[in-house]
């Protein structure tokens, strides 16, 4: 990928620039709908559709630096909207389609979003919160034919009226581009803002780590609500003119393997939870498939346990390369990759030009084999710009020229890094970072609940599961009906991912003398371990 005439615009590079290289007719993606209907979109289609969307936004008065969100399941419109918004230098945020009202309101409200692209089935949620969102001027709905009002617009009608041609303004490297919200252990989710320069690293890692080259067919299973879904489901591969497979349905072992075989996928990027689900299927299933086209499998999101690597070797005859990065890093930082000996369970080694360090809480740089905070020397191209409207949170993560990732790790004598855990209470469930605070807040909205404390506990499938400790008001008793109420409330207010897998009723939630929930004590109690120093525990 080359930067031509100082044009860093992600939307332009992933579409128009690829067409100018003579690849207009090359498939950009094989779209497989949830009902297995296939449509092939070439790079000209991708360029024209994103141009139309950029023109549509422009006709609505969108300007550079304003914010548009997509709130969609995986659909072609997701890609056209994302790239079209970026062409106009509108910042594009992507939201998981399973977010509930509170999760939506936190993100749309904080970002002061001007527009959202969504589906009819999600309109009820948005309408319920829209009176709290004075900045939200347009709801663009992909599956209605005509505009409903000046506020609720038809994506199809907008696209019908828009031109195929759009000249993308020259976009300097530091122009804001993509916005993903991420959870911390306290407070509301933070908007991680990236800049168009991120494409340099995303493109490079797509080539050098994922090994993507011209003839490859690449399938990244990540949802676009996740940074992997934008960095490697859109930007990295398309900046190189790679053909992708995008599938609109959910997990289904047989369907997934049909896709791998029938679409001739050569490089596959998925997540440990999905791989562990595949591992639970009958091994006979995989014998029916010819996966000779598949050269490499990569994984991201949670630590990849050695059992999965061994399963892939024995059942599929393939290695799985685990990669590590975060929303804030924008692209792969530390990784296993073809040509590097895999040490099962390790994160791999740093990319060239990426300088991680293990740092003690007092700021001391630690030697090999000592556990500490995993930090990255600042200045890599895909580094986030800031947390939107939260400069203090950004500043708290940058110390002495290093970005503190919140992960703890060890570096061995061979330069491999090994993930050890989080330095905060954030829960990693199936690759999604969930804030215990968000789940606790949703729980406290239920009238029967007096107090709640939420932890992540080890889980064989999800890496961590969400466990909620709940103290009920005296006049209420736990019942099946209340369990449903709790589950649906968390699912519909936060997200289905945030729904507790276990709910434990207790007499009181342990807090310290200043009233802070002592999740450490809850976790020890759950795991049957010694809770350690309890001197700060409230009487």
């Amino acid at each position: 990928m080359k930067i031509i005439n100082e044009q860093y615009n992600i939307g332009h590079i992933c579409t128009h620039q690829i067409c100018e290289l003579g690849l207009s007719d090359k498939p950009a993606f094989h779209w497989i709908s949830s009902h297995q209907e296939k449509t092939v979109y070439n790079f000209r289609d991708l360029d024209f559709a994103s141009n139309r969307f950029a023109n549509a936004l422009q006709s609505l008065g969108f300007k550079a630096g304003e914010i548009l969100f997509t709130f969609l399941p995986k659909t072609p419109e997701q890609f056209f909207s994302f790239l079209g918004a970026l062409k106009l230098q509108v910042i594009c945020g992507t939201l998981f389609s399973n977010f509930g009202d509170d999760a939506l309101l936190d993100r749309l409200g904080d970002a002061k979003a001007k527009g959202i692209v969504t589906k009819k089935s999600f309109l009820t949620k948005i309408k319920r919160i829209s009176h709290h969102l004075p900045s939200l001027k347009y709801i663009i709905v992909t599956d209605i034919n005509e505009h409903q009002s000046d506020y609720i617009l038809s994506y199809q009608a907008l696209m019908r009226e828009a031109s195929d041609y759009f000249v993308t303004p020259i976009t300097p490297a530091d122009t804001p581009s993509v916005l993903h919200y991420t959870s911390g252990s306290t407070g509301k989710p933070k908007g991680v803002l990236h800049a168009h320069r991120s494409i340099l690293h995303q493109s490079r890692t797509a080539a050098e780590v994922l090994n993507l080259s011209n003839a490859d067919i690449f399938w990244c299973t990540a949802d676009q609500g996740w940074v992997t879904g934008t960095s490697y489901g859109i930007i990295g591969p398309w900046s190189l003119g790679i053909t992708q497979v995008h599938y609109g349905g959910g997990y289904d072992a047989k369907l997934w393997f049909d896709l791998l075989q029938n679409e001739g996928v050569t490089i596959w990027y998925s997540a440990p939870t999905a791989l562990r689900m595949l591992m639970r299927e009958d091994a006979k299933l995989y014998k029916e498939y010819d996966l000779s086209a598949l050269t490499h499998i990569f994984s991201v999101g949670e630590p990849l346990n050695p059992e999965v690597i061994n399963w892939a070797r024995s059942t599929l005859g393939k290695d799985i390369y685990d990669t590590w990065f975060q929303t804030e890093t924008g692209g792969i930082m530390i990784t296993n990759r073809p040509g590097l000996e895999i040490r099962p369970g390790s994160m791999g080694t740093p990319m060239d030009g990426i300088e991680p360090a293990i740092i003690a809480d007092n700021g001391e740089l630690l030697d090999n084999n000592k556990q500490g905070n995993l930090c990255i020397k600042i200045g890599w191209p895909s580094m986030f710009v800031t947390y939107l409207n939260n400069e203090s949170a950004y500043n708290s993560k940058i110390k002495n020229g290093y970005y503190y990732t919140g992960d703890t790790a060890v570096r061995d004598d061979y330069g491999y890094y090994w993930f050890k855990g989080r330095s905060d209470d954030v829960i990693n469930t199936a690759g999604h970072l969930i804030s215990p605070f968000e789940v606790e807040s949703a729980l406290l909205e239920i009238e029967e609940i007096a107090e709640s404390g939420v932890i992540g506990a080890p889980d064989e499938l999800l890496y961590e599961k969400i466990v909620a400790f709940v103290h009920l008001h005296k006049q209420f008793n736990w019942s099946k009906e209340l369990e449903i109420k709790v589950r649906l409330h968390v699912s519909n207010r936060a997200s289905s991912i945030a729904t507790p897998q276990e709910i434990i009723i207790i007499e009181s939630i342990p807090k310290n003398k200043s009233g802070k929930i002592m999740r450490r004590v809850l976790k020890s109690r759950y795991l049957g371990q010694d809770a350690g120093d309890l001197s700060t525990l409230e009487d």
Partner: protein
Amino acid sequence: MDLQQKLNEIFCEVFDDDDISITRESTANDIDGWDSLSHVNLIVAIEAKFNIRFNQKELLTFKNVGDLLKCIESKI
């Protein structure tokens, strides 16, 4: 209200969408938000509302709403 209508109400509540209209052929691919996590909510809600219990083997055989209805019918 017949069984399918009653089940439809549960779907609307679980998936937070009043416009859902299930058929016996409906699958997770037809209803936005029906993923493995919300499926647990759906099963818990069905069990409570119909006062029934599904066993592990039954849960694995549900390929569409028709399978689910057939199993509920056999238990009430």
